[in-house]
């Protein structure tokens, strides 16, 4: 039994405590936007936010979480694709196959929260997600554009 707070809602889940958060999201909660790809924390496709930090959910046993931690998945990032990262991604047509993109977007959103104006070096350091289609240059432009959108929103 686990009590979690996912996208603002507290949920009780009947599940073995060793189950990774990724699989609880996908199989118990039906939040399939968070993707399985490697299962060893190497690729970033399963990235979610836990208390605002980008975390690879395949490496988090659900027993280590409780309802005081805010888990946000791609489904909870915004209503209607309005997060600046989603707006930038739409503007630049970033995704190709799209499978890694929820993780990429969650990683980018966490980066921008900590660092509203990241340099290319900051992006290189923080975005370590694998994309086999090769969207990296648009991801980079997307992060800079999202930073711009944020700035315009504030001014």
């Amino acid at each position, binding site marked *: 039994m686990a009590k979690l707070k996912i996208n603002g809602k507290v949920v009780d889940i009947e599940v*073995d405590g060793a*189950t*990774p958060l990724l*699989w609880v999201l*996908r*199989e*118990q909660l*039906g*939040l*399939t*936007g*968070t*993707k*399985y*790809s*490697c*299962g*060893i924390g*190497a*690729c970033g*496709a399963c990235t979610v936010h836990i208390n605002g930090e980008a975390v690879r959910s395949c490496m988090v046993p659900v027993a280590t979480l409780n309802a005081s931690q805010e888990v946000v*998945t*791609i*489904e909870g*990032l*915004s209503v209607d*694709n309005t997060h600046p990262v*989603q707006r930038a*991604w*739409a503007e630049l*047509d*970033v*995704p*190709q*196959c*799209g*499978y*890694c*993109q*929820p993780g990429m*977007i969650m990683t980018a959103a966490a980066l921008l929260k900590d660092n509203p104006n990241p340099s290319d070096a900051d*992006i*290189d*350091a923080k*975005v*370590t*997600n*694998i*994309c*086999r*289609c*090769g*969207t*990296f*240059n*648009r*991801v*980079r432009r997307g992060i800079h554009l999202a930073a711009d959108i944020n700035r315009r929103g504030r001014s």
Partner: protein
Amino acid sequence: MNTEHINVSRRDFLIRSTALGAGFSLGLYLPWATGRTFAADGLAQASAAEVPEVNAWVVIEPDDTVIIRIARSEMGQGTLTGLAQLVAEELECDWSKITTEYPTPGQSLARDRIWGSFSTGGSQGIRSSHLYVRKGGAVARHMLIEAASNQWGVPMAECLAANSVITHVPSGTTTTYGKVAAAAAQLFPPEHVALKDPKDWKIIGQPVKRLDTLDKLNGKQVFGADLKLPGMLNAAIKACPVFGGTLRSFDEAKVRKLPGVRAVVRVEDYAVAVVAETWWQAKTALDALPITWDRGANVKVSSASIAQMLDEGLRSNDEVFVGNEQGDAKKAVLGAAKTVEATYAYPYQNHATMEPMNATARWTRERCEVWCPTQNGEAALEATAAAAGLPIAKCEVYKLHLGGGFGRRGAIHDFVTQAVAIAKQLPGIPIKLLWSREEDMTHGHYHPVTHCRLVGGLDDKGNLTGLHVRISGQSILASVKPSWWRGGVDTIAFQGFHADGDHAISYTVPNLLVEHAMRNPPVPPGFWRGVNINHNAIYMECFVDELAHAAGKDPLEFRRQLMADHPKSLAVLNAVAEKAGWGKPAADGVHRGLAVVKTFGSHVAACAEVSVDDQGKLTIHRIVAATDPGYAVNPQQIEAQVEGSFVYGLSALLYGECTVKDGAVEQQNFNDYPSMLINEMPKVEVIVMPSGGFWGGIGEPTIAVAAPAVLNAIFAATGKRIRRFPLKHVELRPV
């Protein structure tokens, strides 16, 4: 409305589909199983509004929504949008009202393959179907205009269509496609329609946004791995790690009582699967399952034994096929003033799609259905029927978006065969089979392994007089597509070396001999984005660079001298050289390298800029790439494909290697089979230079020039010729 014009072909279709029997109870309106009605809950349903199609390619709803049917598969390459642009161009519809849906392969077969090939590989999506999909749009436009002119009682010639609005020009009366679509659907299609002159295109050639982006930003896009059906169970699988090995036994009792486990089943003769309520439970139980394998005859196969086999092929006269022969290359080389010789080797590589292999199957004695990401719905249907033991008419495949394809999900549907084999043991229950990353890494259909020896002859002026290329290694076709295998010769082994056609050599070599010594190790090969051009372009383009240096000539000038009869290839080469600043000084420590090929019908070239520091650290700063695909349907997506192809190609160059030990692939996951990350990504400058008159591919061609351009730049930077890959093994530090 002229009610006499009943569409005979549709009536024929009804008669034929009735004759097909119980499996096909298709009415006038086909139950569409994808797009709008499918993605929402993963269930095949009849379309919400049962709107008759105007023709096979076009459905228009009363609110003017235009549904364009796409037979090829979207896997990131943008073909969904590109093909929709082709139909929309001729349809003259409002681009903002377009949506798309996949017809199913079963529906296509029932209609005499009305949608043509479903195969999405070989960069074929657009270039092999542009004519009939544009015609599909033009025919629909004609029928819509005819329906309006009938309603108005005016000559068709007085009516024009634009942006989904039909206007009777003399009176100014207008109507919309949505209002006349039902009437248009009852008309005969015209026998002849004229297609637009390319100079009049308004949508083709425009950098329109992709149609599939928004759902990829919020988790709504349903990939195969995300599918959920009512009552569905999940399966995890392990196949014998040794290629050709079989399953001897497993101790079911050890896991049967673990949480959620519902069944432990044998899958064909080589694998075992655990079926559980959730996939995590299935995988946990499978990891705990004691399994005994019969490792079979290949247990002693290793990378070293394979290398030995291929080296033998470099010297042997057995099983050697000629792919291109001009003049007498051996004689020319013997008589040359200067001879250059080099031997290269290219390793096995895994496709490593981000979404591991998966398929969902439901089997009963009467019917078998499969939901899966596939590059070829018809091949998936064939695999389904074979595994189900049912006639093809009693089977159906519903295509889902692919989390990457790269050739892995096209010709071979082992994952479908397995899913059906499991579902057959649990009749009526939908079973979703998902491979673990480890299963995916160790049971690929790998980029084939080859070695290559090249010998070139130069005269005393440094001109190339003869070239002998001997490739030794694996034939993909021998294993995957024996039906394409002409007289024992694997013609695609010679990609980039052909005398003419889509993969023609870009040079005129007076005496040329290109041979393939076919050596097929027991590791399954497959089509891997770019296929054989990946290694062939490295061999040829790096060796041309070697020849240029041996001749004391500038690599650009040396190439140009051989390209007088290849003006389109020369044009892309010149374009990258000019934009990159070839011949002008680069930034301090930065060095350049070139490559040019014709492949998949397109002419492509690249100029790479790299530096290698004192510690041997390689930085790829910039790649300028040019593509002449004849016609460019969507330039911004071409740019995305070129950039993406470099990530795939450079990941292969830097890290891509599957080694074999005791008959099995050693690499298990992304920790030991890495892929390049954003911090290694060069700046890419894309030149799209469509010269018209032909249709070339986009998804694959530029992958071929990434590696050789970088390797030639590394030589310029370090003086080191690298002929063994990947680069992770190579010491680049200056000595």
